[in-house]
């Protein structure tokens, strides 16, 4: 997964070939499928290390402000 906040404007607008399709075209709609075997393997691997993927996004809050350190998407 590459968050939209991690893609530069140039990369996001990059197209493939002459067809004009976006190079990074397929968006995550947060609908996933995992087998139990996969999850058990992944859990074992991440129990001994691994990387968190922190996504910093500008998200409105209840008082209408955004965190000052939020990166502009």
């Amino acid at each position: 997964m590459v968050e939209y906040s991690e893609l530069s404007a140039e990369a996001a607008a990059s197209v493939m070939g002459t067809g004009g399709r976006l190079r990074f075209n397929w968006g995550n709609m947060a609908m996933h499928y995992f087998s139990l075997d996969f999850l058990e393997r992944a859990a074992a691997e991440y129990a001994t290390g691994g990387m968190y993927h922190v996504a910093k996004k500008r998200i409105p809050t209840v008082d209408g402000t955004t965190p000052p350190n939020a990166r502009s998407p």
Partner: protein
Amino acid sequence: MGDPTFAGFCAARGAEVGARVCAKVSAEERMGVFALRGQPAAMQVECSLSRQPPPPLYILVRAESTVRVGVVQTVCLRGGCLYSWCRSGPVSACWVVRVHAQCERAWLERCAWTLSLGLCPFASWCRGHPSVGNV
């Protein structure tokens, strides 16, 4: 939200991991995308469309608050699979409606119950929509 067609598709392929995706409306759309780590950008998942792409599968799905007609394509990736569909335009709310006659037969048979128009919550609307056609 669960999608029985997506789950059935993954199960029928023996997938370990699957992700349903949709095409971005524009480059600026705020939506994360899938890519292969450490690969050139051209190796984004859509490039792993199998050498012999299956015929298109026309389907209507509910995608968050926006519902679109799409052409489903299968993407096989290292033994798993991704189930993707291409946006061709926003339409009204509907679940699975129409399946192209030539799409993968074995998968269709296993998932036939989800593809029955009778199970579609908006069946009457689907029947009347010009993009749906006959089921």
